[in-house]
């Protein structure tokens, strides 16, 4: 067991996968001697050599496409895109190739790649460095989208993503790369994909979230508890496909739900989750609430706080789902 932050856990998972399986290689801009701009790949080139940790030119479409080619040849590429804001150039490869190579060839060629990228705001970064557009990626058939929210889940889910025989986009909540640490056993054990994690059990309301917003949501749940409201908190973790069974079961119990995400409201995955609940007869006992980023460009640093969902917005939303007899 070792104390790990998310950034360490991701690094450890890659090192473990590379040690276990020589088909696993890492490629991306500055992933070599620099260890990535967030140091997520730190030390890998020293351990595994420049044949397995490849610095690429600046060419995001190319990086994704090369990963597809490597994967089709039976390698297990982990491609890093430096920021989600520069990942859009890979979407063509994700939709038109990665997500459908298996389908197109009836399983003759497959695409076991992982595309990693840090995402999300709240670190006062430059333009284009605060994106949270996971919903665009989660609409792509044939891929998975995974977002961890703790060191242990970062480790276990990344190992699962690497070993998964299909393409996985793995988005890293960079705001909490170094925000906390916990004991993580570097034992090579993966966590299940396609499965939500219930982080806290509760009876009165279900809070559904993922990524860095898990922090605010858990804090809100703590505050709610002190007000006598017992919140269940679910980390969706795999955004594509979503494990709705766990979410529906929870809301069937609590009757109320607030979905929290950093992404813009319209077309964000909160809509999908809310819609699924609305499709279930007799599950919802109050209106759905979503606490999300706004339908705007993420503002630059000075105004960014007005964009990010806050604990108080979560609290307000929870109260709005509640019948009036529960204290506000």
């Amino acid at each position, binding site marked *: 067991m070792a104390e790990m932050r998310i950034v360490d856990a991701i690094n450890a998972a890659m090192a473990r996968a590379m040690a276990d399986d020589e088909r696993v290689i890492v490629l991306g801009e500055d992933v070599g001697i620099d260890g990535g701009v967030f140091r997520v790949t730190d030390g890998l080139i020293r351990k595994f050599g420049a044949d397995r940790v490849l610095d690429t030119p600046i060419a995001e479409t190319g990086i994704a496409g*090369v990963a597809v080619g490597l994967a089709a*040849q039976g390698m297990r590429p982990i491609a890093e895109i430096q920021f989600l804001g520069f990942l859009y150039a890979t979407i063509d490869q994700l939709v038109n190739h990665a997500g459908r190579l298996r389908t197109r060839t009836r399983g003759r060629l497959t695409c076991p790649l992982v595309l990693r990228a840090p995402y999300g705001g709240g670190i006062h970064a430059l333009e284009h460095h605060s994106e949270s557009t996971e919903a665009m990626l989660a609409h792509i058939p044939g891929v998975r989208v995974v977002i961890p929210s703790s060191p242990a889940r970062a480790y276990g889910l990344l190992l699962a993503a690497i070993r998964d025989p299909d393409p996985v986009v793995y988005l890293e909540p960079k705001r909490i790369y170094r925000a906390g640490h916990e004991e993580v056993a570097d034992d090579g054990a993966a966590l299940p994909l396609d499965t939500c994690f219930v982080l806290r059990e509760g009876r009165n309301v279900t809070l559904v979230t993922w990524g860095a917003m898990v922090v605010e949501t858990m804090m809100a749940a703590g505050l709610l508890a002190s007000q006598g409201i017992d919140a269940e908190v679910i980390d969706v973790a795999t955004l594509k*496909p979503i494990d709705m069974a766990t979410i529906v079961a929870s809301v069937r119990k609590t009757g109320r739900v607030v979905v929290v995400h950093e992404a813009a409201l319209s077309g964000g995955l909160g809509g999908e989750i809310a819609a699924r609940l609305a499709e279930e007869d007799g599950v919802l006992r109050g209106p759905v609430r979503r606490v999300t980023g706004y339908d705007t460009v993420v503002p630059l640093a000075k105004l960014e706080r007005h964009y990010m969902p806050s604990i108080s917005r979560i609290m307000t939303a929870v109260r709005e789902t509640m019948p009036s007899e529960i204290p506000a």
Partner: protein
Amino acid sequence: MQVATFAVTHHRFLDPSGRTVQPLPAFANDPETLRELYRAMVLTRTFDTKAIALQRSSRIGTYPSSLGQEAVAVGLAAAMTADDVLLPSFREHGAQLWRGVTPTEMFLYWGGDERGSDFAVPREDFPNSVPIGSQAPHAVGVALAMKLRRQPRAAVCVFGDGATSKGDVAEAMNMAGNWRAPVVFVISNNRWAISVPRAAQTAAATLAQKAIAAGIPGDQVDGNDVIAVRHVVGEALHAARAGGGPRVVEALTYRLSDHTTADSAKRYRDQDAVAEAWKEEPIGRLRAYLTGHGAWSDDDECQLIDESTARIDRAAEQYFAMEPAPPSAVFEYLYAALPKALEGQRDEVVQGHHHG
């Protein structure tokens, strides 16, 4: 001060009338080798003819003929080994046939059935890439995998003149150069990208010079001379397999047909230019050479045409006889194992809610 100079060289062995303009490469001294190339080009044209007929009678969908471009497809395939990997665009029927994809599989694909890309042979070749140029980075990945595993193999990526304008193609060539990846990019320059002529595609004097931006060698070859295509691609592959890095080969040919069966080239191109181009087409050229050297007769020709037609017709019949895939096939290969979350959708399709 000049700090760098570059040149593009053009290669040809047979002129349009089938006369040699320089000594042939060694492989071409074996008449049987040339006859094999000849037969493959004729088979390709036979396949094209049949495919167009099948499209006209709605037995397959939109189809891109390779009429006039047979020497590029056959020449590059003949230069490859079975262990090399082909990443074609969508007009390399001749290359696929040469490499062992069956005409039945090809009809299946063009008929709109995913099983057509599940070739029995060659298992590692890529399916057709419809999004122009997008297979170029795949080729670099394939080649990189070969290189990292220290295998003496190479990837061949084929695309058109139009594709050379695409950013992903430039990125791929550049990355290949960086990693000295064993990949040969063959540009099948048929002078047209749908309605856009080669001259409007780029101000570059040659397409071979796209290689210069990536710091790799680029050559031009007469793409209607199958001997030249096979020779130049063969040398490039040889170098690539031996660690010499990537190359670009621009093959000059001409799209004698419409872009696809959905196109009508008369809208935008002069028929005179097409008539001119017919004089350079590859099959007549090699036949002239072979007959001129007593290596091919009218009888051979009749027999070849009969055999080719019979083979392609048989393939079409096999295609017609295929059982349709069941509705469940819609979900079958989406993921290695269908995620639980999608089982409901799969069941809905299988139970046939869909029959409107």
